[in-house]
């Protein structure tokens, strides 16, 4: 499994935000995207995941496992997304948030409940099925969100400053948890971060975005 970017850039009206990016993200590796604020790191992730706001145009190509996904809608790309606010849906319980991620192909009430329970156990959240996500700690929320993303069986993962809202003490723990799961799944991941410690722990290639020269 691999994620390939060919001369990928994003235009808002006039010029491209950053110089075209070409990248080969190998399975199980985490590529860290760094660069100054406002250079368009999150926009790069949006372009890969299919979440660009209206008015933005993608230049170049995104390939996932040899399949060109550049023109596909976000929901058809099989690219998972993690961001700093965890993005758990506030109207659903923790368990139902995870069930939301489970593929439809897994049939049967009991089987689906079991899959959710297993995922919760993996995240150290056993028995928190019925909890309101708002009552979880920051670390628990991050772990639940990662499990929800992984349950959808993504073929690549995008992480947009996933640890920036966590305390320093917690950050190392959640980072290790996240990276271990990515390695276990053997999927390519792209992570935007401001924290050099994140990049160091990721141990993968480093992609530095710089302002487009005009």
């Amino acid at each position, binding site marked *: 499994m691999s994620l390939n970017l060919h001369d990928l850039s994003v235009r808002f009206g006039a010029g491209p935000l950053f110089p075209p990016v070409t990248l080969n993200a190998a399975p199980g590796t985490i590529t860290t995207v760094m660069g100054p604020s406002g250079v368009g790191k999150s926009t790069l992730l949006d372009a890969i995941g299919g979440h660009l706001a209206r008015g933005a145009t993608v230049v170049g190509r995104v390939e996932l496992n040899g399949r060109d996904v550049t023109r596909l809608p976000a*929901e058809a790309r099989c690219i998972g997304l993690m961001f700093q606010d965890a993005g758990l849906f506030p109207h659903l319980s923790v368990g139902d948030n995870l*069930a939301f991620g489970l593929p439809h192909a897994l049939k049967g009430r009991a089987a689906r409940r079991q899959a959710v329970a297993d995922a919760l156990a993996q995240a150290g959240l056993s028995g928190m099925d019925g909890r309101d996500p708002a009552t979880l700690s920051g670390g628990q929320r991050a772990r639940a969100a990662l499990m929800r993303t992984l349950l959808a069986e993504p073929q690549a993962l995008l992480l947009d400053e996933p640890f920036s809202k966590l305390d320093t003490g917690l950050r190392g723990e959640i980072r290790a948890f996240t990276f271990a799961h990515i390695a276990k799944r053997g999927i390519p991941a792209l992570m935007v971060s401001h924290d050099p410690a994140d990049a160091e722990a990721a141990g993968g290639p480093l992609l530095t975005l710089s302002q487009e020269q005009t």
Partner: protein
Amino acid sequence: MTRSGAEGRTLRAVVLTVLIVAVLGPIAAGLWQSLRAGLGVLPAIGAETLSLDPWRALVDLPGFGTSLRLTLWTGFAATGLALLLAVGVCAAVHDRMDRRASGRLLAPFLAAPHAAMAIGLAFLLAPSGWIARALAPVMGWDRPPMLETVNDPWGLALIVGLVAKELPFLLLVILSALSQIPVRAQMAAGRALGYGRGIVWIKVIMPQVWPLIRLPVMVVLAFSLSVVDVALILGPSNPPTLAVRLLRLFSDPDIFQLLPASAGAILQALLALAGFAVLWLCDRAGRVIGLWWVRRGGRGLSAEPGLWLATGLATALMILGALAMVSLLVWSVAWRWPWPGLLPDSWSLRPWTGAGQGVTRALMNTVTLALSTTALSLTLAIAWLEGEDRGHFPRAKWAERLIYLPLLVPQIAFLYGLNVLVLRLGAAPGLVPVVWAQALFVFPYVMIALSDPWRALDPGLPRAAAALGAGPWRRLWRVKLPVLLTPILTASAIGVAVSVAQYLPTLFLGGGRVATLTTEAVTLSSGSDRRITGVYASLQAGLPFAAYLAAFLIPALRFRNRRALSGAAA
């Protein structure tokens, strides 16, 4: 406790007292009167024996069952359709809609009074109206077709009229609810998990929007189940909906008809309650089914066609509404307009000049009522919010719910009872009771429109003023009110629009002697002279338009050199 804190408590106590004595008390008393009269006790006309006869008389009215069915059908269909379309439109276009631009687009529709919109739609939909005229060459009609397109026995024209007016309101309400939800992030999260846009909307966004729009939807439902003016103009005529029948009973020369009419008023209140119960059941059922559906994890990649259908229908309705307003104006200056011409052969201002004193008096009454009810409501709203600020109170949820009460109780259920009460207190029907009765419905809208911008005001501004030595009154007059000019004017424009649109309060509390543009237009609409009707309805629609325009232009001129205030706060 600081002086301003104590002042805040006093201010709020005053506002609460006014609210209870002048708003909630009268509604309760009016309902009580209706209840008593419905059970045969109305001493004013010498009826003093408690009995169920009025209810029997009501149920025995010829065609009572049909009226009841029509009321339920049109009320639920209009509310359901308006809600469905509004949700569909928001789902389809929310990410390309700029909130300010969409607010401006919706403003004229919100400003248009129900009656004017209904009259315009009648002009448009009637067999001799614009739509039939446009179709005539295609269909080969050499005379207006014999179709019941208005006042049809199924109430379809009534439903169209209600939806055309309620859709913009629900759109506005949903858009403002959406601004409280991180839609973009949740949409991305849902789509990254493989869900199509329409499905994310239904499974993730709507369940969060619903609690925020439940009360407005209840208002729409209660209104649709009990509307009088729109039903008079567009609704079925024989038999009409329940509310229209009640109006006829209330104005029957035989005063003993007041008893079954009062029983019917209570029935209207019960219908609204039943409507809320149905809504609550749908809410419960939706929650259970929704959860079951979410847990199954269906991705449903193809909800888009439904969304585009909703958008198409909604657009068509908005165009219909806009054309309706234009047709009012065109009819008011039409002279000779033979079938099947799309425009009159000859034009004339005679309907305007010929309307004379009647229209002038109605206009004066309408303006007087609009200005006084709006000023009253605005003062009360500002006193409430300022009291909250000075007393450092958190926003009181229960009080906000109470504000909605006058909008949730059908007008016809308590207004006649209120009238009886006013007469018993020895007050003469006239402008003053009408001002008060209208304010019951104007105040809630003004308060709702003003409270969010007021609470969103940067608290640093009054603090900075206080640090410079400005007392609470100076902070209010010199800092808060000027900075909040745009929302205050917007709330006033809404107040004017609500006041101008009032029909029943004016009719009942004015004892039939206070003629406004609305009461006259509704009366004229059953006649045959579209020109005169067009004059009254155009003026009726023109007043709120003028108010909205002023609310838009005044801040733009006043703050033309103040970028932070030139409309951004609206």
